[in-house]
């Protein structure tokens, strides 16, 4: 593996970067208990974006982990989860907005707290998306890395604390040029009443295509998803 870039996103921070076709992005929970809310877009045609319903139904899963692909609405693979030491990433909870963050944590303004002010996932993603010309209509269902929400038979949602340990990481291989928009912010269903988002580390590398074989061959649907993706580059 050929490391291109390493960067730590502090708790509450937001960033975005293009992971080019053939590169991979490793996201590491540095201290344990992190949550990274993520959106993905085709970097060259940004109306194409992560579609969690398509992702979930074609792989018959609600959780996401190694072997799964993250699909766009155009039937292509924006990223493949090639490694995951955590085991469960959430597709249900989404991101809080300012009102929900206030309900949970109370007031935490920049005026008093400077850069430790209380941020929220919606505004963090919108700010980052705005830099690429994207806005509210583009903020669709988000993927929450490192978080787990269990569903009972009756449908009740239960946040599972401690799903991710210090050092746990997930690696996303990009079979196309994928814009990753990310914020490290607490999960909306995390019952912790204290505003305490955790940092994550990003590491961008060149990758060999065969790292994604596990994902490409994990089901027939993904074989076709990779075919669709390759056809975009003919």
């Amino acid at each position, binding site marked *: 593996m050929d490391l291109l870039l390493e960067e730590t996103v502090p708790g509450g921070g937001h960033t975005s970067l293009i992971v080019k076709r053939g590169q991979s992005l490793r996201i590491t929970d540095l201290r344990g208990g992190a949550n990274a809310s993520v959106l993905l877009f085709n970097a060259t045609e940004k109306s194409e974006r992560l579609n969690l319903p398509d992702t979930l139904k074609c792989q018959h899963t609600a959780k996401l982990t190694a072997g799964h692909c993250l*699909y766009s609405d155009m*039937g292509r693979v924006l990223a493949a989860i090639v490694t995951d030491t955590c085991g469960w990433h959430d597709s249900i909870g989404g991101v809080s907005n300012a009102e929900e963050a206030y309900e949970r944590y109370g007031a935490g303004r920049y005026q008093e707290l400077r850069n430790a002010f209380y941020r929220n996932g919606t505004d963090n993603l919108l700010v980052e998306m705005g830099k690429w010309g994207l806005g509210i209509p583009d903020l669709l269902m988000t993927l929450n890395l490192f978080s787990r929400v269990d569903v009972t038979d009756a449908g*009740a949602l239960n946040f599972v604390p401690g799903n991710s340990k210090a050092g746990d990481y997930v690696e996303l291989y990009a079979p196309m040029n994928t814009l990753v928009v990310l914020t490290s912010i607490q999960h909306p269903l995390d019952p912790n009443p204290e505003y305490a988002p955790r940092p994550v580390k990003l590491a961008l590398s060149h990758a060999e295509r065969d790292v994604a074989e596990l994902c490409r061959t994990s089901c027939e*649907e993904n074989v076709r998803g990779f075919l669709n993706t390759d056809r975009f580059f003919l």
Partner: protein
Amino acid sequence: MTTTLTVSDKRPEHAVFRETLAAGEPWLHELKTGQTLRILDLEGNQAVDTLFYSLADPRERFDPQRTLRRQKNLYLTTGTVLYSNLGNPMLTIVADTCGRHDTLGGACAQESNTVRYALEKRYMHSCRDNYLRACAHDGRLSKRDIGANINFFMNVPVTPDGGLTFEDGISAPGKYVELHAEMDVIVLISNCPQLNNPCNAYNPTPAELLIWN
């Protein structure tokens, strides 16, 4: 699964709007604050793929993740408030004789059909075709506005180990759901034409739409 079914006392002869939507057709219609929309599954286990937008500002639209986390439950039924991406209540489910409606399965599209079934299924009719056609003619909405929708009458449970299963439908002929509008909304429906999924017994059927003041 425990479900409480709620019957409506509204009478079809008092409806201000009543239309049968054939299988595979789109429907884009405004619903005003205080009006009630009934979606009726005429023949059973028909997926009615539905999106909602604020009439005043269509950038405000149905937000599935907020709706689920605010009620701390995956399934929609009577009492469920459908929230917008700006945190406002859009509609409330006030009657439901089916008891389960899906929010995770999304709408079918030519492209997702190639992944799910076979590359050569691309040319079959799909919900996203319906959405795009209705949006193109209406002019207020476009591809960018098509987010994750509700599949009324579809049963897509999540298992304790995180699996997603497409179970046999629990709907039946004559089952319905009623939504009370908390704001003026645009309702965008595709009466799903999917022929590859056993959920609807490979047989898309009509739905009836009724509105009361």
